[in-house]
C-alpha cells in the first residue's frame, strides 16, 4: 500500500519535472514575461478604459479580477496542454499504453503551471500595488495566497475536462481559449456577477473561480478567515467536483478509445 502510494507520488513529481523541462526551461525571460504578464496587462488596461468610458467607477475591481484570472488560466491551460500536446506530438498512445496510473501522470504535468500561475498572480498584485495604488497594507497576505492557490487548483479541474475534450477533437485548445474568454463575463472578473442576467448568475455559481475570486476580493478589503471560509469551502467543493468529472470523462474516453483503437485517428 505504502509502496503504491510512493510510486504515485514519484510519478507525479517526475511528470511535473518533465513538464517544467519541456515548457518553462526553454523559455527566454522576455518571452516568459511577455507571455505571462504582457497580454493580461494590456487586456486589463483595455477593460479599465472601457469601464471608465461607460462610467464604471472602480478600476481596482477590474485590476484585482484580471490578476486573479491569471492563475486560473494557467491551471486550466496546463492540464489541457498536458493532454492535448501528447496527442499533437503523437505520443499519447505510448502514455496510455503504459501501466502508469493516469491521474498522477496528467496532474503532475499541471503542477508547474499551477505554481507558475500562483507566483505570477502574486507578482501581478505587487505590480498593481505600484502602478494602480492598490493598498495591500490591510490585506492578510497569507489568505490572499491561499485564495490564489485555490483558484489555480480548482481551475485545473476544468483543464482536465478540456484536456479530455482535446482527445476527441483537434480543436481542444481553441475550445479552451473560447471558454477562457467567457470567463471575462461569467465569474466576476470585470464586474460583480449581480450585473449578469439571472440565468447567467446561476451558471456563474456553478463554475469554479466565482467563489474564489469573491473570497480574494473580501481579503483585499481587509476581511479575515471567518468572512471567507464558506466561500473557500464552496470553491474547493466545486473544484473537486470538476476534477472528478474531468477525470471520469477522461477515463471514459480512454476506455472507448482502447475498444475502438481510434485515439489518434480523430
Amino acid at each position, binding site marked *: 500500500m505504502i509502496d503504491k502510494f510512493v510510486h504515485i507520488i514519484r510519478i507525479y513529481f517526475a511528470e511535473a519535472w518533465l513538464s517544467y523541462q519541456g515548457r518553462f526551461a526553454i523559455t*527566454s525571460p*522576455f*518571452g516568459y514575461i*511577455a*507571455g505571462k504578464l*504582457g*497580454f493580461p496587462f*494590456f*487586456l486589463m*488596461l*483595455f*477593460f479599465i*478604459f*472601457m*469601464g*471608465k*468610458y*461607460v*462610467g*464604471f*467607477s472602480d478600476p481596482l475591481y477590474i485590476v484585482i479580477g484580471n490578476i486573479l484570472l491569471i492563475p486560473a488560466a494557467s491551471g486550466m491551460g496546463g492540464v489541457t496542454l498536458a493532454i492535448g500536446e501528447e496527442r499533437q506530438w503523437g505520443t499519447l498512445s505510448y502514455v496510455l499504453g503504459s501501466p502508469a496510473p493516469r491521474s498522477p501522470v496528467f496532474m503532475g504535468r499541471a503542477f508547474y503551471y499551477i505554481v507558475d500561475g500562483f507566483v505570477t498572480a502574486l507578482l501581478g498584485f505587487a505590480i498593481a500595488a505600484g502602478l494602480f495604488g492598490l493598498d495591500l497594507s490591510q490585506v492578510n497576505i497569507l489568505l490572499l495566497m491561499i485564495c490564489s492557490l485555490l483558484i489555480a487548483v480548482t481551475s485545473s479541474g476544468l483543464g482536465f475536462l478540456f484536456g479530455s475534450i482535446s482527445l476527441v477533437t483537434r*480543436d481542444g485548445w*481553441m475550445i479552451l*481559449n*473560447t471558454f477562457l*474568454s*467567457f470567463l*471575462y*463575463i461569467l465569474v466576476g472578473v*470585470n*464586474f*460583480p456577477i449581480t*450585473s*449578469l442576467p439571472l440565468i447567467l448568475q446561476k451558471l456563474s455559481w456553478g463554475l469554479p473561480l466565482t467563489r474564489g475570486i469573491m473570497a480574494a476580493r473580501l481579503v483585499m478589503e481587509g476581511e479575515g478567515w471567518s468572512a471567507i471560509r464558506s466561500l473557500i469551502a464552496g470553491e474547493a467543493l466545486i473544484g473537486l467536483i470538476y476534477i472528478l468529472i474531468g477525470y471520469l470523462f477522461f477515463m471514459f474516453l480512454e476506455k472507448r478509445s482502447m475498444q475502438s483503437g481510434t485515439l489518434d485517428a480523430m
Partner: protein
Amino acid sequence: MTSFRWGLIKQQMSVQFLVRTLNPFFLGLFVIQPAVFSAVGMLLSRAAGNSTPDLVYNVIGGGIMGMWSGLVFTSTYDILGDRRNGMLELIVGSPTSLNLIEAIRTLTNVLSGLFSLGLAFMAAILIFGYTFTGVNFWGVLISLVILLFSMWSIGVFLANFLAWSRLSGTFVDYLEMPIAFLCGFMYPIRVLPVWLQYISGAVPIRWALEAMNESLLGSFDLNYLVVHWLMAIGLSNVFIVLTSWMQAKVHDSIRLSGELSSI
C-alpha cells in the same frame, strides 16, 4: 501581364481563404471574441447604472476588435506557417516577390475581417434596434475604406516582420491588445491620458477609426474628417515605405549570405 496578376491575386486569395480564414480558430477570432468583448462593455455599462449600451463603441467597436484580432493572427501565422513547413525559402526564391504575396494575403485577411464588422452592424440593427438616424453615411463609408487600407498597411508590415526576423515572432502576437487599447477600439480616444493619445497618434488605424466613429455619431465636420483621413493615409504610407525598405535590405542580405532560415 495584367491577366497574370489577376490570376495571382485570385489564386492567393483562394488559398488564403481555404488555409487560413475558414477554420474554427478564426471563427473564434472573428465571431466569438468580439461578441465577448461587446458583452463585457455592455455589462460594465449596466454595472455602472446605464440603461442602454453604447452601440457605436460597445457593439460596433466589438466588430473592429474582431477585424484587428483576425488580422494580427492571420498575418503573423502566414509567415510562421511558411517557415515551419519549409515554404518560406521557396516563396522568397520564386519570381513573384514576397511583398506582393504578403500584400495579397493580407488583403484577404482584412476583407475577411469585414465579416466580423458586418456581424457587429447586424447585431446593432437586429438586436439593439440601431437605426442609423443622423449618421454621416458617406463619412462612414470613406472612413471604412481608409480603415481597411490602414489595417492592410500594418498587416503587410507585421507579416513581413516575421520574415525579417525569427525573433519577432515571440512578441508580434502581443500587439493585439496594446494596439486595441491605444487606438480606442471600444472607447473614444479622449478617455486615455494625454501622453497615451500622443503615442496612439503614430498608428494609422486610430485616425481612420476616430473618423468612422464620429461619422457614426453624426458628425458632418468635414475639416475634422479630412484631417483624420489624411493622417491615416499618410501614416499608412509610412508603414508601406518602411516595409518596402526593410524588405529590400533583408533580401539583399539573404542573397549575400544565402541564410534565410537563420534570420
